[in-house]
């Protein structure tokens, strides 16, 4: 049985789909190319010093990482054929495969692993990934020992996919700053594909690495990533078969593609990113410093309307900071459903009576430029909807990204509609926006100015707890507190979907296309 033209929804459906996909696995076929359509242009191709999906997709084809993760959050060997923890949980030993070579023929050694991890620690925006790493020892060419200052349960995940590309020390170790290194545009990795041509803003062409360390892989001859900024145009190219695979992020395109024969449309493969659309409040300014006002706004929003009418039923509900498909998600956290009376009562109680024109007060909402396809309709909706409870919303559209970033970073805002990613482990993508120690003048930190001592304490504990059950319990309490205090209103999980030709066998891990595609193949000629 083949899963054709179905928009699969929710975690349960995902698990079902995975089972089905495994059941009919056939002998992989060699050959053929894949055209992936991508909405964003990568700044460069080295994920070691650059976050983001646009860099991660080509980056993980070019660079291999120590481990891989599957759709069930389980870890598997990749450049490391095995690994073991020390008893105190403060050292992780990686045993590397012996036949891995970079695309220029130089063998991959433990020195490259040590160099890569320390480079990422020093340069990557996600400081928490390797924050506790003190050093990486290299007792021999194929053994690397990561030594930690404190237990770090997120470490294994941080060694997978785009989070830990092993970059060649003999190329990047030449003294130039890695962040601006010329090799970022012409990368040399040890992954299944090598870069053939890179036309910025247009197309990235990857060809098979015949010298890949996994025997017989990859199956494909090449991958072409076509950059198409306009959502409608990208949809058309998937429809017409100009492109074979796409990450589609807007509800309108997803529902359209879902009706087309020969295409699989699925939300699987985004569990790792955990894309959340949120309405962030600046909790330092009146009237949003009052929790009752924030709760009133939450009660005034019709979540069902957002999910069904705006998101066309293809986005999942997301009531809290941790993505609902994560094992750490707490389904019992406080939830807010439409209740205009309660919203009005809360606003009255908070001392904001309606004026003669029915308006209580005006709030401004920041929107990110150039992202309207994914979130543009929700800000418009909120402007219409919050009027119902006497809140007048003015949109402040920043004409460009830095203007928006400037407003957020300096606290010069009231509300902001934005997209935030979980990035696999809460330590990486969630802690940063709730810790009071991370109230800083940079974007994607705790720009809400939110402070709660218990939250700080819980996150510190959870970040070091290696016992899964205990860690889950810490996160559950954290979600209860922020759910009550609402420094942010989580609107929905963004409806990111993978769309691909049915004839492609495409195993989707939690990282989706942001992990090696050496196992991808065409089941028949296209």
């Amino acid at each position, binding site marked *: 049985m083949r899963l054709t033209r179905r928009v699969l929804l929710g975690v349960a459906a995902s698990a079902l789909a995975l089972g089905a996909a495994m059941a009919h696995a056939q002998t992989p076929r060699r050959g053929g190319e894949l055209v992936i359509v991508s909405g964003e242009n990568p700044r460069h191709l080295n994920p070691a010093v*650059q976050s983001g999906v646009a860099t991660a997709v080509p980056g993980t084809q070019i660079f291999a990482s120590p481990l891989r993760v599957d759709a069930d959050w389980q870890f598997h060997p990749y450049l490391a054929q095995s690994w073991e923890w020390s008893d105190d949980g403060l050292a992780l030993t990686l045993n590397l495969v012996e036949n891995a070579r970079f695309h220029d023929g130089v063998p991959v050694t433990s020195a490259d692993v040590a160099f890569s991890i320390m480079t990422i620690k020093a340069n990557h925006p996600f400081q928490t990934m390797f924050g506790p790493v003190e050093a990486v020892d290299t007792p021999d060419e194929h053994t690397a020992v990561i030594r930690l200052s404190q237990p770090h349960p997120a470490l294994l995940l941080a060694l997978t996919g785009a989070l830990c590309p092993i970059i060649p020390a003999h190329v990047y170790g030449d003294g130039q700053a890695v962040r601006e290194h010329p090799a970022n545009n012409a990368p040399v990795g040890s992954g299944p594909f090598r870069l053939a041509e890179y036309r*910025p803003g247009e197309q990235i062409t990857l060809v098979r690495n015949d010298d890949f360390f996994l025997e017989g892989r990859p199956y494909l001859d090449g991958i072409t990533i*076509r950059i198409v*900024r306009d959502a409608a145009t990208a949809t*058309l190219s998937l429809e*017409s078969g100009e492109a074979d695979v796409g990450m589609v992020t807007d509800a309108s395109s997803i529902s359209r593609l879902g009706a087309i024969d020969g295409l699989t449309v699925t939300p699987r493969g985004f569990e790792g990113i955990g894309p959340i659309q949120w309405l962030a409040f600046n909790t330092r300014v009146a009237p949003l410093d009052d929790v009752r006002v924030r709760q009133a706004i939450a009660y005034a929003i019709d979540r069902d309307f957002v999910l069904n009418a705006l998101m066309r039923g293809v986005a999942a509900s997301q009531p809290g900071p941790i993505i609902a498909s994560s094992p750490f998600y707490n389904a019992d956290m406080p939830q807010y459903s439409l209740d205009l009376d309660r919203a009005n009562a809360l606003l009255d109680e908070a001392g904001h009576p309606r004026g003669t024109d029915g308006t209580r007060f005006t709030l401004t909402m920041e929107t990110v430029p150039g992202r309207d396809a994914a979130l543009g309709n929700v800000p418009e909706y909120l402007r219409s909807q919050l009027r119902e409870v006497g809140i007048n919303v003015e949109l402040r559209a920043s004409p460009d990204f830095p*203007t928006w970033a400037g407003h957020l970073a300096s606290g010069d805002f009231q509300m902001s509609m934005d997209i935030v990613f979980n990035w696999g482990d809460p330590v990486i993508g969630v802690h940063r926006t709730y810790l009071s120690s991370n109230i800083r003048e*940079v974007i994607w930190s705790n720009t809400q100015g939110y402070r709660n001592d218990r939250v700080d304490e819980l996150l510190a504990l959870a970040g070091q707890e290696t016992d899964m059950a205990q860690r889950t319990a810490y996160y559950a309490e954290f979600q209860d507190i922020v759910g009550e205090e609402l420094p942010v209103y989580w609107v929905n999980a963004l409806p990111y979907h993978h769309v691909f030709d049915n004839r492609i066998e495409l195993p989707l891990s939690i990282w989706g296309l942001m992990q090696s595609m050496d196992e991808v193949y065409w089941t028949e000629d296209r």
Partner: protein
Amino acid sequence: MGSARYIVQRLIYGLILMIGVVVLNFFLIHAAPGDAAEVIAGEMGGITEEMMAQIRARYGLDQPIIVQLWTYLSQILTGDLGMSYHFNRPVTELILQRLGPTILLALSAQIFAMIIGTVLGVLASRKPNGPLSGFVAVFSTVGYAAPVFWTGLMLVILFAVVIPIFPVEGMVSARFRGTGWAYAMNVLWHLVLPAATLGILFLAQYARLSRASMIEVLGADYIRTARAKGLGEGRVTFHHALRNAVLPILTVAGIQFGNLISGALLVETVFNWPGMGRLAFDSVLRRDYPTLLGVLFFASAVVVIANLLTDLSYRYADPRIRTGGR
């Protein structure tokens, strides 16, 4: 005045204009709130204050603005337009890659508009008050009155969904690996819709202009003479008269080039055409200053050169100007 000296003079003057464009925009862009370090920080996915300080130092953003301008201008003179913040590579390289597609699009549109517009105008001029003339007058206004991106979007709908015979995205098919003739045909196939969209916008001007100047020329003595000699109407119209109506058409072609670049920006965005316009659009949204300044510099260069070529062809086509006697 000798032609060579004239060209050199014009080029120097053009260069001064181009540098003026860059200086003005340099100051404007730097007057905006927020700085480039935030751009880069955002591009990298959020970074620490220390990294931002490093970036400021590395790109010289901690220098006074006059020093930054001076550094930038001296770089330009050596052909270096700096590094793009977003694309993280030399701006010159980026623009050279995009210049070809934009010029291809603009010229095709220009030629399309010129040929069809002139033919329509000439036909209309033969009976200035006839129905064809009225049709041309209205039809040419139609093309001009629709927003160019809207025309493009409507064509996308028509040709992607209703009659899918032309591609609506890009310059070459993603899967296409051929070279030579096959490559040219693939590009041409992709060029049809964008060039037509952009061309329709300018059709009007050519149609009106050629109609008006043909009416004027057809009344002139030498045309009467040609008619009197018994030459066919077609030959009179297209051979004798058109040759003289070509001057104003050329002039407009030169003046239009600036507008053509603006139109190309919108058309490239609609059709995902990998040209300078889309690059400019991306760099404005990202406030990628170096790229934006580079695009402004090159776009004004294109206009300067187009004007110069117009001038030269004008001088060539009209001997009175060439000899300086008027």
